């Protein structure tokens, strides 16, 4: 294939490839595939052939609705564009005949649109209903029935279909109704409102103001802007539909490296890997080093348990990350880049590799890119299962083929990095933002977020949460909003106890502090960190001592053993915690914990050791009474607690399992243990 030229890109910008009129996008990321998205894809392919439908079957990454995997998005002529979740291969023929043939949506599988409308600009064809209220019996079926009866009475039953939704994106607001295709959404709908909605809105086309949900969606998708929209395996799709490589062309032909860095400075983007170092400054420092060779590294060693945003971005939108890396390289004068990706993410590796091959084939990598004189190439290096390699100097050691032990800084990698050359290491998310900043301007990006933390941040919300998913919100959104408004609160209607941020390097934030707006500084003040963006929700049945032990064990396992504070301190800390949790703690143990933690924070060589005490210290700070109870209660209390925990877990086996069992990739046989 011919190498791309500047003119080609200008043509793509002037004339984006139009969407096909009818398509189905199957979201095939690791999560989706594990839930059976590949089998759904195959079933859809078969059904399309059998039913002779001309709709295009497309592959994309994940839009982030992990709770509803496998997810597909469907566009049919004369139908609202919708996401279907929790699909099975068996449903494929029905989905096609209903959606494309009968123009009807499937009950219990539609995910309501988050782009809620405020005006009824089109005739209502479908009504999504759902009960988001308290747990005393689900009223969705009653709602559906009442709506149908009312529509029949008015003679509209043929024109409008009433559908039970899988998820409405609004929680604890009673009965919620969304009118498609305009996505006008009503909340707290009561029985007597139904007649009004049918007369006024569905028949009359007027919005009922006192029921209307006016709040804009809390999510702002910048990093995830193409996730679930573009085909991660297709350069053409990225170029044609997603303005791909336009930011690179802009940088190469209209900006100097200094201007790129200046734009990044305006955007005030800070590193999304956790530490929050200003990205422009990192680039500036690296650029300023006189050297024949500079390197740029994309840190995709997402080792924090519970974090999967980097995986999702790499899998769903690999070309954007590559484009971001190329812009970074241009700004710093680097001609070589590395993707350092965990080997646990085979799908991400595969897609980045394909992206690199495609880019190389079309002359986007190599010499004289787009005829600009800029040379750049990139390679992949696989992590080999060491958490510490997320640390910059350890990561470099690993690429150089050595043990991934960190070394003291300074010198920082921007001065002496890979092979002793100046190197900038940027997180996946950071690089994914870069093209957006260049296209839309640093000021636009900086208009999101708070004074010190600009822009948006992606969080992977998991644990005891109703809708585990990827969430992208502006900095300054509160934890409560993220957990309750976006993700629907705690699983099974239980009481929330705490939210853990930052993984093994972070801490817990108790319920009374959930109103805290999320930013680098506020989380740090609470004894936690932003980290890479894992957010774990815990309910009242979770023991904080157990959580602290879990994270500490992780850090002890992952300590590289180079420096004593981390190696010995971690081990000793673990011994003390273990003693306490067995009810054998001594009264002086809490003070001892503080002393060890302090030593580790002060004297450890790298971030792993310095932050390893955070989970312990923060649980101690907010849930000290749980530790105290173990110490005072003695072994009998400890035994009781472990019994309670095991009873709680067996009792908590939710009937929700039944639903997910049907989605498990293999037929499950009952086997007695």
């Amino acid at each position, binding site marked *: 294939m011919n190498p791309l030229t500047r003119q080609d890109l200008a043509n793509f910008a002037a004339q984006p490839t139009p969407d096909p009129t009818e398509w189905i996008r199957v979201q095939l990321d*690791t*999560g989706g595939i*594990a*839930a059976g998205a590949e089998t759904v894809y195959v079933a859809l392919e078969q059904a399309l052939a059998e039913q002779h439908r001309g709709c295009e079957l497309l592959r994309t990454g994940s839009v982030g609705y*992990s709770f509803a995997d496998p997810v597909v998005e469907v566009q049919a002529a004369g139908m609202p564009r919708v996401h279907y979740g929790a699909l099975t291969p068996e449903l494929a023929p029905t989905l096609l005949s209903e959606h494309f043939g009968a123009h009807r949506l499937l009950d219990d599988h539609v995910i309501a649109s988050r782009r809620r409308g405020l005006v009824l600009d089109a005739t209502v064809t479908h009504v999504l209903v759902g009960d988001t209220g308290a747990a005393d019996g689900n009223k969705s079926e009653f709602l559906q029935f009442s709506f149908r009866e009312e529509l029949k009475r008015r003679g509209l039953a043929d024109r409008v279909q009433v559908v039970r939704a899988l998820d409405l994106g609004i929680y604890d607001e009673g009965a919620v109704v969304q009118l498609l295709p305009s996505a006008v959404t009503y909340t707290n709908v009561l029985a007597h409102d139904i007649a009004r909605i049918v007369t006024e809105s569905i028949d009359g086309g007027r919005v009922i103001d006192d029921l209307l949900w006016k709040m804009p969606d809390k999510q702002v998708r910048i990093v995830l802007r193409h996730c679930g929209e573009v085909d991660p395996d297709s350069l053409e799709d990225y170029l044609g539909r997603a303005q791909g490589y336009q930011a690179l062309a802009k940088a190469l032909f209209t900006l100097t490296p200094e201007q790129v860095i200046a734009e990044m400075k305006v955007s005030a983007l800070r590193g999304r890997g956790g530490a929050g170092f200003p990205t422009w400054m990192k680039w500036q420092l690296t650029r300023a080093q006189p050297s024949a*060779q500079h390197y740029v590294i994309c840190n995709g060693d997402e*080792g*924090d*348990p*519970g*974090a*999967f945003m980097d*995986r*999702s971005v790499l899998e769903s939108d690999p070309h954007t990350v590559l484009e971001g890396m190329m812009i970074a390289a241009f700004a710093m004068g680097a*001609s*070589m880049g590395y993707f350092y990706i965990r*080997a*646990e*993410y085979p799908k991400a590796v595969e897609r980045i590799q394909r992206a690199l091959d495609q880019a190389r084939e079309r002359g986007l*990598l*190599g*010499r004289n890119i787009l005829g600009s004189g800029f*040379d750049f*190439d990139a390679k992949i*290096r*696989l992590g*080999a*299962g060491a*958490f510490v390699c997320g640390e910059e100097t350890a990561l470099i050691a690993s690429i150089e*083929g*050595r*043990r991934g*032990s960190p070394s003291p800084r300074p010198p920082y990698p921007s001065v002496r990095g890979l*092979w002793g*050359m100046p190197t900038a290491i940027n997180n996946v998310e950071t690089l994914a933002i870069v093209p957006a900043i260049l296209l839309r301007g640093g000021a636009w990006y900086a208009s999101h977020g708070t004074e010190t933390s600009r822009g948006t941040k992606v969080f*992977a919300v*998991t*644990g*005891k949460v109703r809708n*585990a998913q990827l969430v992208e919100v502006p900095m300054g959104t509160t934890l409560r909003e993220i957990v309750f408004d976006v993700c629907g609160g705690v699983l099974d209607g239980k009481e929330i106890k705490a939210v853990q941020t930052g*993984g093994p390097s972070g801490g817990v934030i108790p319920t009374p502090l959930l109103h805290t707006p999320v930013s680098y500084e506020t989380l740090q003040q609470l004894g936690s960190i932003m980290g890479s963006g*894992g957010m*774990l929700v*815990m309910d009242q049945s*979770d023991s904080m001592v157990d*959580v602290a032990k*879990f994270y500490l064990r*992780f850090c002890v396992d992952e300590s590289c053993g180079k420096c004593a504070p981390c190696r010995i301190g971690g081990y000793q800390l673990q011994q003390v915690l273990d003693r306490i949790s067995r009810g054998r703690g001594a009264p002086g143990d809490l003070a001892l914990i503080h002393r060890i933690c302090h030593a580790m924070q002060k004297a450890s060589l790298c971030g792993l050791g310095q932050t390893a005490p955070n989970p312990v210290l923060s649980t101690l700070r907010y849930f000290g009474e749980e530790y105290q109870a173990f110490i005072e209660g003695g072994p009998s209390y400890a035994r009781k607690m472990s019994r309670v925990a*095991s009873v709680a877990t067996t009792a908590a086996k939710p009937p929700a399992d039944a639903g*997910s*069992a049907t*989605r*498990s*990739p*293999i037929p*499950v*046989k009952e*086997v*007695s*243990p």
Partner: protein
Amino acid sequence: MISNLNLETQGQPEAAPASAPLSKPSTKNSLAPAPFPKVALIIERHGRKPARLVPILQEVQEEYRYLPPDILSYVARSLNIAPARVFGVATFYAHFAIKPKGKHLVRLCDGTACHVKDSVPILDAIRFRLGVTEAQPTTRDLLFTVETVACLGACGLAPVLVVDDQVYGAMTPEKALAVLESVREQERKEPSP
């Protein structure tokens, strides 16, 4: 012998744009036949660069399912680096196994999300059923190796079990055992090589 072939590579930065060929095909050692031809090929493919030690070991492990000591020494000789360095790297990273692993790798995610959704009872059940422990993770018939892994990034499906490359979500002890049973059943019917 082999070790003299490539002295220039230690710690040398890799060439910048990849349009340049990765490595020149190095001169064939005509004297002694390589004791591990497959390993020799892997090393050759990586241009005998010590910097490529990690990817080399990854590929060797893929071939042998673990890293036998003889091969580690052979890699060290071929790359002209100290065996201690190769052993150091091989023991540092969690992915490398010095002992033979089972035919089927059973990995249970014990990431945070899976942990709070009760992955530990699943692990206990699997270990009990297969008669393995943390210290002795491989079954005697070398059919299964049971490991925990920090996080697989499929937290929406927690708890997650991975057998070889197949991911199973929303596991319970019963379901996990059923998965293993089906693998064993498959083995009984038509043993894979």
